[in-house]
């Protein structure tokens, strides 16, 4: 074995993943590779100590509670939704969970506003004249949008991929950026409709 071949196996050798007799024999003849192996063993040992030190770490119980609440909201929305509304319902349930946590942490959460015209059928200018909004989309097929007039609306950010589920175009280059949405809440606090704001 030469030094180049030794380089190919030194990491595995240092970690005990392989027992390469030829490689070990090479360290008897090559002081550079012997030092290299010793250093690699030290790095491996150091990393093992770090890994062990964090072995017992777990997420706080409140994270599981929050996620469970989000799951239940999503499951309820899923069972209520017809086929096409399934994933938007999940996404919004998850986003609502995030919003709930954010609101708990930050007392300056956006104040709900009442919806004016949920039945708008085309892109409309929202209250801020620099914004353009889509129509409202019902999250359940049999939702009567006009019945939601006056319902509270919250502004939130949703994953941009949600756009495609509603048949709206999405710029793939901005796929990682969230999109602003106005979510209409029903009397039970669950999302009923959504529109997207640019």
């Amino acid at each position, binding site marked *: 074995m030469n030094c180049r071949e030794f380089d190919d196996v030194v990491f595995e050798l240092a970690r005990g993943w392989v027992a390469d007799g030829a490689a070990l024999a090479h360290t008897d003849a090559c002081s550079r590779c012997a030092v290299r192996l010793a*250093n690699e063993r030290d790095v491996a040992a150091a*990393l093992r100590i*770090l890994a062990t030190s964090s072995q017992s770490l*777990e997420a706080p119980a409140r994270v599981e509670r929050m996620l469970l609440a989000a*799951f239940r909201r999503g499951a309820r929305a899923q069972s209520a939704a017809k086929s096409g509304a399934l994933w938007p319902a999940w996404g919004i349930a998850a986003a609502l969970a995030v919003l709930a946590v954010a609101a708990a942490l930050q007392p300056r959460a956006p104040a709900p506003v009442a919806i004016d015209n949920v039945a708008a059928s085309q892109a409309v200018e929202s209250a801020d004249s620099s914004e353009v909004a889509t129509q409202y989309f019902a999250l359940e097929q049999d939702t009567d949008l006009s019945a939601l007039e006056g319902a509270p609306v919250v502004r939130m950010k949703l994953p941009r991929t949600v756009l495609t589920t509603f048949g709206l175009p999405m710029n793939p280059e901005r796929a990682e950026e969230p999109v602003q949405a106005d979510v209409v809440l029903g009397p039970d606090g669950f999302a009923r409709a959504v529109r997207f704001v640019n």
Partner: protein
Amino acid sequence: MDPQLPSDEELLQQMLSGQEEAFVEIYRRRQAGVLRFALHMSGSAATVEDVTQEVFLALMRDGVKFDPRRGSLGAFLYGIARNHVLRSLDRQADRSSPAEVELAAPDADPLGRLTRRETIETVRAAVLSLPVHYREVVVLCELHELDYAQAAAALGCALGTVRSRLHRARGMLAERLRGGTAAPSVVAGQIKPAGCSI
């Protein structure tokens, strides 16, 4: 894993059909790994909880996108966690240094505990000082013991890329532990320069 227990993939299917117990089981199996990944990548206590939460919300929302042919569910979750950590690191870049996270040190004697603690802190600082692309392969392959294929699936890159980055990262880590930015420590004191004697 006990063959009697359902696999992650089976649990995911059950979860996607709305079974709460399946979601809880996936969460309990995987949350610690996700949390530790976020910790080792960011060193920030605030980040780890947020990332853990976001990863499982994303699983509820996008679990249907999981393709077992491209890697394990664990790798899929690490991939999601990685995206959130990278975004968090971008945000942190404008702020002060990340908060320290207290880790348990089980040694009984104070001197041993102090030495161990110093070692852990030194190694942690060395890992955190690596550029992100190198840090993530060290965290996945060394601290979480993923094989190259799993790490490649989590990072969305070629297996050869993982291997070469890991090779370079280990070299950088050895440099740092030897007396660079993360020195000095018990571990660092053991590492010698690997000069070429041939």
